[in-house]
């Protein structure tokens, strides 16, 4: 080689701790190589040959061995393309090319839209080798070139990508019919419909086309499949079935008329084709157990949700009711207790009242017993003044003071003692600030 190439990349610094015997660490080996044939030409090859031969002589055996080792880049021709020719096909007239099965003519029946351009070319050549009229003539047979023309026509169409699509669009041989009910009864639902859609997929503008799958397909896959197909973007066209447009010789009007007719026919066929696909999808999806299953599962899931919700609602309702009940019960209890309490207080109050009344009577009685603290018969004025002072004291007294006072006066008959009790009571009240000095003089003097 010439001068070493210089590259503008950089090597990384060595990581600390890296070490190897003599600074070299073998890690792997070359993983893959192919035996190929170098072309024995040019000065560099001569140099190689000189090194490789190295005074050795190679034999015929070496040749064979080496040739077997080398990867062959020339494939053996036409091997795979071969099918018997139907005698009635061989009698066809090329004029009827529109109704001809172009794939069968080239021996590619089993490939059809799947045939590669390379296969078509090879198939054509193979047919030419066999059917060229000049070969037949050389073999002393009549120079009949009608089937040869069929071959040429088939090749012209299949090697022209536009024409080939037009033909493939109407190539019913490649169709896989939707399965009948009877076929489906035997099972094989997925295989049968899968084949239908696989064939149908040839018209798809977009790839990859999702496959039909089987009963193990996930719900997403199945939904994806039907979505794809219900929105199928097809390149299928129907020009191939056009009526021939009259040649230049005919009138323009007539030409235009045929063209319009053709355009309408294409449109109609396209619409019919869309409808056909839609119906097929409807039929297929109706029978698709996966959809039923997914629906059921979805329903079950939905039901479960509903039941859960209902149960939750019920529980909540019950809880609420219970709570309400408890609340009302508590309220009733509280009410009853309050009533009781109220009644008790009322009773107590009344008792206190009666007690007060009774005590007041005692209090008033006491002054009466003490003859209103008069040595003689008390004058009405004395009586009034004493009773007035008694009422004044009572009015300043709490019931318990009254009860206390009453209990102290109970049983006392001696006027001084009685007066003594009153006096102390008046003093208490004066002390508490409830009476002023000089108030209730008749009781305290």
């Amino acid at each position: 080689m010439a001068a070493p190439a210089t590259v503008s990349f950089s090597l990384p610094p060595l990581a600390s701790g890296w070490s190897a015997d003599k600074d070299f660490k073998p890690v792997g080996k070359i993983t893959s190589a192919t035996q190929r044939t170098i072309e024995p030409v040019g000065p560099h090859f001569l140099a190689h040959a000189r090194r490789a031969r190295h005074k050795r002589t190679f034999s015929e055996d070496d040749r064979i061995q080496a040739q077997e080792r080398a990867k062959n880049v020339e494939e053996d021709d036409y091997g795979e393309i071969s099918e018997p020719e139907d005698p009635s096909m061989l009698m066809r007239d090329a004029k009827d090319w529109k109704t001809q099965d172009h794939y069968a003519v080239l021996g590619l029946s089993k490939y059809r839209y799947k045939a590669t351009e390379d296969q078509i070319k090879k198939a054509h050549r193979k047919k030419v080798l066999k059917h060229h009229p000049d070969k037949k003539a050389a073999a002393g047979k009549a120079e009949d070139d009608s089937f040869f023309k069929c071959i040429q026509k088939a090749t012209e169409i299949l090697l022209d990508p536009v024409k080939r699509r037009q033909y493939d669009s109407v190539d019913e041989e490649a169709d896989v019919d939707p399965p009948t009910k009877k076929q489906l009864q035997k099972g094989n639902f997925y295989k049968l419909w899968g084949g239908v859609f696989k064939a149908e997929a040839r018209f798809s503008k977009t790839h990859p086309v999702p496959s039909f799958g089987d009963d193990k397909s996930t719900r997403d896959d199945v939904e994806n499949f039907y979505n794809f197909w219900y929105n199928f973007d097809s390149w299928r066209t129907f020009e191939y079935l056009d009526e021939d447009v009259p040649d230049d010789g005919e009138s323009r009007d007539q030409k235009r008329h045929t063209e319009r007719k053709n355009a309408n026919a294409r449109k109609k066929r396209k619409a019919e084709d869309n409808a056909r696909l839609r119906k097929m999808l409807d039929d297929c999806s109706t029978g698709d157990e996966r959809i039923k299953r997914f629906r059921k599962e979805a329903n079950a899931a939905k039901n479960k949700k509903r039941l859960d919700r209902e149960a939750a609602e019920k529980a909540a309702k019950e809880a609420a009711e219970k709570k309400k009940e408890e609340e009302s019960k508590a309220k009733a209890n509280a009410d009853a207790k309050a009533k009781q309490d109220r009644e008790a207080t009322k009773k107590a109050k009344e008792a206190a009242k009666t007690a007060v009344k009774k005590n007041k009577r005692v209090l008033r009685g006491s002054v009466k017993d003490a003859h209103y603290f008069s040595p003689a018969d008390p004058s009405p004025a004395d009586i009034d003044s004493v009773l007035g002072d008694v009422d004044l004291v009572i009015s300043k007294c709490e019931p318990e003071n009254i009860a206390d006072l009453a209990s102290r006066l109970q049983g006392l008959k001696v006027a001084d003692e009685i007066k003594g009790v009153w006096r102390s009571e008046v003093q208490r009240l004066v002390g508490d600030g409830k009476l002023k000095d000089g108030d209730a003089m008749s009781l305290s003097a």
Partner: protein
Amino acid sequence: MAKTVEPGDRFAIGITFGNSNSSIAHTIDDKAEVIANEDGDRQIPTILSYVDGDEYSGNQAKAFLVRNPTNTVAYFRDYLGQDFKSIDPTHCHASAHPHNTNGTVSFKLKDQPDADEPSTLSVSEVSTRYLRKLVNSASDYLGEKVTSAVITVPTNFSEKQREALIKAANDADLEVLQLVADPIASVLAYDARQESKVEDKMVVVADFGGTRSDVSVVASRGGMHTILATAHDYEFAGTHLDQVLMDHFAKEFIKKYKTDPRENAKSLAKLKAEAEATKRALSLGSNASFSVESLADGCDFASSINRLRYEMIGRKVFEGFSRLVDGVIKKAGLDVLDIDEVILSGGTSHTPKIASNFRNIFPETTTILAPSTTPTAINPSELQARGAALQASLVQEYDAEDIEQSTHPAVTTVQHISNAIGVISTSEDGEDTFVPIIAPETAVPTRRTIHINAAKDGGDVLVRIAEGGTHIKVTQPEPKPKEEKETDSDDSDDSDFDSDEDDEEETREKVWKIGSTLAEAAVRGVKKGGKVEITINVMADLGVTIQMREVGGKGGVRGTLAKP
């Protein structure tokens, strides 16, 4: 035994013996030159014609296709060494037809004056006669008797066909030094140019001839060449472009004269001859005339066509060429991004449209070697003969035995590594990149050296040697920010569709992927700004030795990897 000549007695040339045309070339001072025959033609039609016992060849014979088709033999090269049952007689329909003689191919030609019955000449005999003519032309031109030649053949020429060709040449008193593959001869012709460097490159050789198109993908590694894949096509070739023009002008003629010139053999021959001339003229000019005296029914016909129209009516054929090339690249397991060079060879490759289509298919980094895209391109019709002449000058000094041994399959069959071998570079942000040192599909033994920067500050650096492969990274264009549409009416579907169309295309690029590590090594104490030299040697048994040292430094590190 094949005919051999002592090296000292040899006078050797290069020959391309084509189905449509042949060429002869020699070298002067290591430069190849294609020789004109006595008619001044460098592309000599591979045709012989007999008139009153006189033999004509080349363009003179071609002219007789109109007046004397049954005694004119053309397009016979491919029949050499073939059984009658495996030949395609299509292109001989307008000249002498091939016949079946005990399973072999022959022609019936009146090659004797005054003979009533034509002679039956085997295709081998016809080839011998034609080659003799070629060699005589060369000898006359060079002033010395040509004894030997390197002849080019299609890559799918079978062993039987090769033997038949050698025999036909020997019978013409010509020693065949070597048969070389057509595409490799073309590569050699380019390699031999002074300005060309020995490089590792992936080359597509597209040979568009008269009756067939042959495409090869060739890995060129250090001046050695390996064919990775080929395709051969008989459906899209020069003659199909003739047909396009013939149909075009025939229709024009019918419109005017209500008769189809294609239905009469002689009219058809005239139509074909003029169509080919018009086609060639369209390779140079943007307009070409078409005129034939007495084309049919005694009516003269004159018309013209411009290049644009021609390119339109020939579109199917041109697209067929493009698909063929694309297909063979795929067959080789490659992508158009892997192709460094496309060599256009064969007469049809003069057509500018073919090169411009390729210009569109391949990335800008691919050189399209055709006259219309590269001014310095070599005449596509001369490539193979030149390559053959160069090879002839290279081997003529060797004994026949020596040549036979040097080209022996035991010598030519060698291992080719499937993956590249390279070194890992690490950028400052720690990203590893594979830097190839030996390209994939390089034949072993081989040796390559590179110089690579050490780490920025020098010091101890890590050399990690690994295998590498490529893959094509496809980047979708950034979705354009949707132009804020003023609440347009709902049915703006159409405008949406339009904007789809001028969407930018995805970008595709070839990126290296780091494969399995082969070895690690340390080069120590590299000075700041220094470089490291890495040399990788892969032995014939796929064992590897690796040597590393600082450029300009002493010593270095060295290690080996065992063979797999």
